[in-house]
């Protein structure tokens, strides 16, 4: 029964959705303090290469590799974030775009370490390693009536879902905390925020670094889910894709980035016909969204409205109380 329900194809797509959600959050979090970074593909690459190289050459466990990958990307985030404070708006976008490209050129040219364009194959696969561990512990997929690859991808997906829930929970908490309010204030008006005593330097670098860290984290996970990475995976087009998640879904609230990442990952899979025109559609989406709904599909008022909907439905469900109109 379970075996028929779990199609590795669907599990695979769901795993990509999870990774893309992390990428979506990574651009959302820098945007939430009013900074647009187009360098997230570069940070993603740093995370991916760091973790892949560490696990291949030093046989570190994957989870340590992933954490180190994220940390290294975060350190680069600080290194770029501090000097980038002098820049804002379009200038920052372009400087980070340049950074992403430089990173890619380095991956291509640093052949002794990165193997250049050939890429790194044989990166330990998250699912297969987990699978080895559990089978070593005496678990057999047949016990649940599952096939090997079903178990492998089920484990990957479960792990990613848990990670995502934790991340989303953390960032929602953060948004409601002093940090989140500081980000919002800076996004509204930097000078006003400064005069209110908010430490602009600290919070801007913090949000930039968080974005880099998350992108690196997603990159490291990507490396271990694909088991193969090459510099082309982290090029300009990836940066655009990440940007789309947030622009389409919504850049004001975290749910926007999550929705954008989910929708944009399913879309080409669901509509195979579209796949060929994928980037054309991306282009049209960017233009239309900017013209008609620059804040993205999901914004604060929509969220509020959904919340009210749910609330009012609950009230009527209980059959008590009358609907209040205001």
């Amino acid at each position: 029964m379970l075996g028929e329900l779990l199609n590795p194809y669907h599990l695979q797509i769901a795993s990509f959705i999870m990774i893309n959600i992390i990428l979506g959050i990574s651009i959302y979090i820098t945007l939430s303090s009013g900074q647009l970074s187009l360098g997230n593909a570069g940070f993603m690459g740093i995370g991916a290469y760091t973790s892949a190289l560490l696990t291949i050459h030093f046989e570190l466990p994957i989870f340590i590799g992933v954490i180190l990958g994220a940390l290294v990307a975060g350190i680069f985030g600080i290194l770029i974030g501090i000097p980038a404070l002098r820049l804002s708006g379009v200038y920052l976008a372009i400087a980070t775009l340049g950074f992403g490209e430089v990173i890619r050129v380095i991956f291509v040219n640093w052949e002794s370490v990165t193997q250049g364009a050939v890429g790194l194959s044989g990166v330990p696969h998250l699912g297969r390693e987990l699978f080895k561990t559990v089978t070593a512990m005496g678990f057999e997929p047949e016990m649940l009536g599952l096939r090997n690859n079903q178990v492998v991808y089920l484990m990957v997906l479960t792990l990613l879902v848990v990670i995502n829930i934790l991340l989303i929970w953390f960032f929602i908490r953060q948004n409601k905390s002093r940090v989140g309010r500081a980000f919002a204030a800076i996004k509204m008006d930097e000078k006003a925020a400064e005069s209110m005593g908010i430490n602009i330097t600290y919070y801007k670098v913090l949000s930039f670094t968080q974005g880099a860290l998350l992108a690196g984290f997603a990159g490291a996970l990507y490396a271990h889910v694909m088991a193969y990475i090459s510099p082309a995976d982290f090029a300009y087009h990836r940066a655009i894709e990440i940007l789309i998640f947030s622009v389409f879904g919504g850049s004001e609230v975290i749910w926007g980035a999550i929705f954008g990442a989910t929708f944009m990952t399913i879309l080409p899979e669901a509509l195979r016909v579209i796949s060929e025109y994928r980037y054309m559609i991306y282009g049209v989406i960017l233009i239309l969204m900017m013209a008609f709904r620059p804040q993205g599909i999901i914004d604060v008022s929509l969220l509020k409205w959904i919340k009210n909907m749910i609330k009012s439905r609950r009230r009527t469900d209980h059959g008590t109380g009358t609907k209040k109109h205001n």
Partner: protein
Amino acid sequence: MRKIAKKSYLLISVLMLILLAACSGNGTVPASGDSSKNAGGPVSAKIGVISYLSGPGAAYGEAITNGFNLALDEINKKGDVKIELVIEDSAGKQEQALTVAQKLMSDDDIVGLLGPTLSTEMNVVGPEADLNGIPIMGTSTTAAGIPQIGDYVFRNSLPESLAIPAALEKAVAANDAKTVAILYGNDDLFTKSGYDTMKKEAENMGLDILTIETFQKGQSDYNAQLTKIKDLKPDLILASALYNEGAVIMDQARKMGIDVPFVGGNGFNSPQVIEIAGDASEGLIVATPWFGEKDEPKVQEFVKKYEEKYGAKPDQFAAQAYDALYIMEEGLKNAGEADRDALRDALAEIKDLDGVLGKFSFDKVGDVVMEPTVLIIKEGKFQLFE
């Protein structure tokens, strides 16, 4: 405020509906038809194809699927084995190749996979197929290390490690070359991997490598690299480039007055080179598994049939795909049943199978054993290079 919210709600629900509708079309469980083993009669089997059918490299995928379809008609008409192809598009991207591979592999009726088109995709799909115990054969994946991925991974495409040395040896002998310059695209797996082979081979042959220059995708100005090469006066230029860039490089080189022969890899081998570079393409030496002018009835028949059906001359990708399906047929015939493991074992045994590319065998790891043909562009067309 209310109004905006309502509007966007509508928008979302419409989008979601589209998605749902599309999803349900996708999620249907494939009906297990007549692909079971019917003892006695011909083996009938489903084979999955992963091909690059949309995006910038769609032309490759198209030629490949054309080759498959042509062979499929003939095989099913012949009736020794009944094959059904399930073709999926990878768009040249690793993620997508992996997801469609999952889709194909989770269908128990599918006993073997053909493709994917690019070596980068194979690097991702290969290990997964190996883990799931389904034989997979690349028809256009020429980079080093592909068959080494696992026991279930094969290829019938001539790897660069066979093609380049063959071309280089003949070119060096004919031109009495001592010095070479190497030029390659360093941001592409295919050209980079070709370069690695070139460099190794040139070193083995004791050639003096004067300089190694690189270029990147989308570049249109190669004058700086070529001026440098011209100054060093090499006897040969080894260029690991796809035909697109390669043709432009030759054009700019000839304009500059560089007239030494070029030796190229597999990706440089295309009639398009002559179309793009015209006279400047004279003197390009490549090794190829496929030579359409070959004076052999089998080859000529294939060319004729292909032209009739698709209105274009088959290139090496179509020819390799055509042969690949015949290899699958042979494997299924020998296996005697539509079973993944039996097919793998039968494939590994294949020796001296006659195809349009010549006699074909797999070596121990599942790589190609065959004799490449060396060609040169002369008088505006590819000719045998003696």
